[in-house]
C-alpha cells in the first residue's frame, strides 16, 4: 500500500539510467535543495538523436521516478520528439502522481529540456 502508483514504485525501486555521462553533449539541471528536489540530466546526442541519457536526482520518490521515466521515454528519440515530452506526459506515463506531488516533484521534463537547450547552445543548433 503506497501513496504512489505501482509504476512510480517500480521506477523508484529500479530506476533506469541512473548516473553521470562523463563527456555529455548536454547537461540540464532544475530545482534546488531548499525546495526539496534537484534533478540533473546528461545527454549523449548523435545526428539529433538521443543516443544516451542519464540522470542524478536528489528528491522524493516521485522526483526519482519521474527522472527515471523521462530518460526511458526519450532514449533513442530525436531532440524534437524529446522536446515535446511534458511534465504532464511523464506523470501520465507513471499512471499519475498524488496531487501534492504534481507541481513540486514533477520537473523531470524541465530538466530534460534544459539539457537539450544546453546541447543546442554548445553546438549552435
Amino acid at each position: 500500500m503506497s501513496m504512489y502508483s505501482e509504476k512510480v514504485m517500480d521506477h523508484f525501486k529500479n530506476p533506469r539510467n541512473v548516473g553521470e555521462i562523463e563527456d555529455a553533449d548536454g547537461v540540464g539541471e532544475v530545482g534546488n535543495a531548499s525546495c526539496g528536489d534537484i534533478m540533473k540530466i546528461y545527454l549523449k546526442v548523435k545526428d539529433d538523436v538521443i543516443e544516451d541519457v542519464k540522470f542524478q536526482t536528489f528528491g522524493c520518490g516521485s522526483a526519482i521516478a519521474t527522472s527515471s521515466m523521462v530518460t526511458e521515454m526519450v532514449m533513442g528519440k530525436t531532440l524534437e520528439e524529446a522536446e515535446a515530452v511534458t511534465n504532464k506526459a511523464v506523470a501520465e506515463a507513471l499512471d499519475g502522481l498524488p496531487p501534492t506531488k504534481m507541481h513540486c516533484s514533477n520537473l523531470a521534463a524541465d530538466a530534460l529540456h534544459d539539457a537539450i537547450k544546453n546541447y543546442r547552445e554548445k553546438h549552435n543548433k
Partner: protein
Amino acid sequence: MDRIYLDHNATTPVRPEVRDRMLPFLGELFGNPSSAHSFGQEVKVQFEEARQRIADQLGASPAQIVFTSGGTESDNYAIKGTAFAAGKGHIITAMVEHPAVLQTVSWLAKKGFDASYVQVDSSGVVDPDEVKKALRPDTILVSIMHMNNEVGTIQPVEEIAAITKEAGVYFHTDAVQSFGKLPTKVDDLGVDLLSMAAHKIYGPKGVGALYIRKGTRIDPLIIGGAQEKRRRSGTENVAGIVAFGEAIVQAEAEREQLYSRLTGLRETLVKGLTERIPEVIINGDPSKTFPSTVSASVSHVEGESLLLSLDMEGIAVSTGSACSSGSLEPSHVLVSMGIETVLAQGTLRFSMGRGTTKAQIDHLLEVFPPIVERLRRMSPLSASKAC
C-alpha cells in the same frame, strides 16, 4: 521479520486493554450521557471516571478537565479561547511548536491579534529569558510546548511558568507528546492550560482533553448544547473518552520502566547510525530530549526517498516534518534549530514506543546503511564525492 513501526510520535496502536474497555460503549452502553434516563446515566458514571483519571495524572480536579476531539482541538481551544475572551492582545510562542499552535496563532494574527515568536538554540530549546524579553504590557498568552514532536526536545516549562506568573499572563503548554510519558502535574509545571491527546499513548484517535486552571478566562471553541459545563458542546465521544481514561492509567503504570528501556534503545540506535553511516547528524541534545525520539539528518539524500526505501523493507519512520500538507518546505523545527536546508530535507525521525525491541533496532541498522548508500549514489549532490 514482521513489519517494524518506528513512528510512535505520529500515532500509536490502541492497547488491547484499552480497546476492551471501549467495546461495551459500541454495544449496549450506547446512551447519551446527557440523557436523564438510565441509558444515559449508566454511561455518564464511567465517563466521569475517565475524567477523574485524567485529572489524577495532572494533579488537578476533574472540574478542570474538558474533553475534546484531540490534540489539535485542545491547542485551538486554549489559544483562541483565551484570545477571544481577552478580545485583543499579544501572544508569544516559539518557532518549534506544532502547526496546531503555530497556525492557530497566525490565524489570530490575521484577525487583529499580535504575535511574537521566540527563537530556540541549536538543540531546539527555548531560552526563558527570551520569553521574558518578548513580554509586552498587552501580552495575554504564552504558548510553549512541553515536548517537541520532531526532535523530542523537552522545554523548560517550569522556568517559563515562573515568568508568566510574575507577569500575570496565561501560560499554555502543548503536552500532546509528553502526557503519559513525562510527569505532568500542572502545579509543578505551573501552567494554566495543558493540551493532551489519547492516540499518542495507545488510546484511540479523535479524543483529547484540555486542562483549564480554575478562574481562567476562556471562551468556548465549540458551542451548543452545553456539554462539559458549557465549555465544549457536542455529544461526547463516550467510547473514546473512557478509553483515554484507561490509556493514561496504563501508560502511567509502565512509564518509568519504559523510559529506561527507551534510553537503552536510543543508545543502540544512535551509536549504530553514527558508526555505520558516514555524515549523519543526530539532532538535539540527548540530555534534553525524550529517549523515544531520534532525529537523524543524512547528507546528500532526501527524506522521503529514505522513508519509502525503509517502507519497502517493512520499516515505518517519518520525515522531519510530521505535517500532512505534502509541502516540500523543510521542517520549520529543524530550520529554526539552525540546521542547513539541504540537511533538513534529508532528515528522518525514528520514534520508538512500547512495542519497540532491540531486535527491531538491530534490523533497522542492518537495512538502513545500504539504502543510504544507494540513494547517495543516485544523488547529484554527492556525485563529486566518494561516499
